């Protein structure tokens, strides 16, 4: 059977493959104790963390203050409510 850390690492890789970076970091953290000395693990986890930090920084300092929200109503029509 796989232990919890191994399962978490597998799920982290799946999340990375699907570009769900925040989720991946969560799984990496759960597996961290077990894979502490694994270099590949450390590179993937730290790169994902750095990417999230960059994304976070971009979201607050992007300089683009336009927020675009699209809503799709039940009749199938889209309404653009850009602000």
């Amino acid at each position, binding site marked *: 059977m796989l232990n919890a850390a191994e*399962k978490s*690492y597998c799920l982290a890789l799946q999340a*990375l*493959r699907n570009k769900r*970076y925040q989720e991946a970091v969560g799984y990496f953290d759960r597996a961290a104790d*077990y*894979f502490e000395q*694994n270099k590949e693990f450390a590179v*993937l986890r730290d790169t994902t963390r750095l990417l999230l930090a960059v994304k976070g920084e971009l979201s607050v*300092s992007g300089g683009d203050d336009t927020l675009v929200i699209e809503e799709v109503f039940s009749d199938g029509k889209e309404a653009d409510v850009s602000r």
Partner: protein
Amino acid sequence: MSRTDTLKKLEHMLESFLDRAVALKAERIGVLDGINRLDDIAREMQGGNDVTDSVGSWFATHNRWLDDRMLRPAERRRVNGILDEIRRGIPAGASSSPATRKVAGEIDRWTGAGRPSRPDSETASRLVLRRGTEEKTDHREPTIAKFANTLEKITNLFADCSGNKKHLMSALDDALLSAGNQGNKEALHLSALIIYYLKQNGYKVEPYVSQLKEAERLQKGHGGSC
């Protein structure tokens, strides 16, 4: 270049790096997904659920692993171990349903095919490992029985590592990889044994000794790899 542009460039670079890293491991990740799913099924079964359909569906998806020889020796042992767990929980007697019997048969076929085979069919034999009744012992104490058990595991591992290989060095490479990357203790013992054998036969073994020491260091540092 503005700060935002720099951050965007860095974001793109990091995403590309992760994409490529994942792409390089795509096949391995697929295998790990499958092993993880099988492990989930085994846990469902331990929870008292009927997993016949789930196992059947798993085989339908992953049957090609057997034919394509996609699994590494360590992965095959992992899959066989989990299938053995599931097999023990599946009643396959006359009173069980056809679907259950079919799944049990499929597991037997899979685990039977997964065992290492010898190229000479006349000497080929199937080795079935069974765990005896558990006894209360001091697990740290080395005993003759434990050593014999380890020796058997090493023999099986060697059969895995040397299958389809033309030279002992290639089997040693495989064993060292398994010892380093997967933290496999038997692989470490096997590597040391092969290195000693090669040394006795006049081969230069220094590079292998370095790899062995690195694998040993890794094993002392961590528990394993995914």
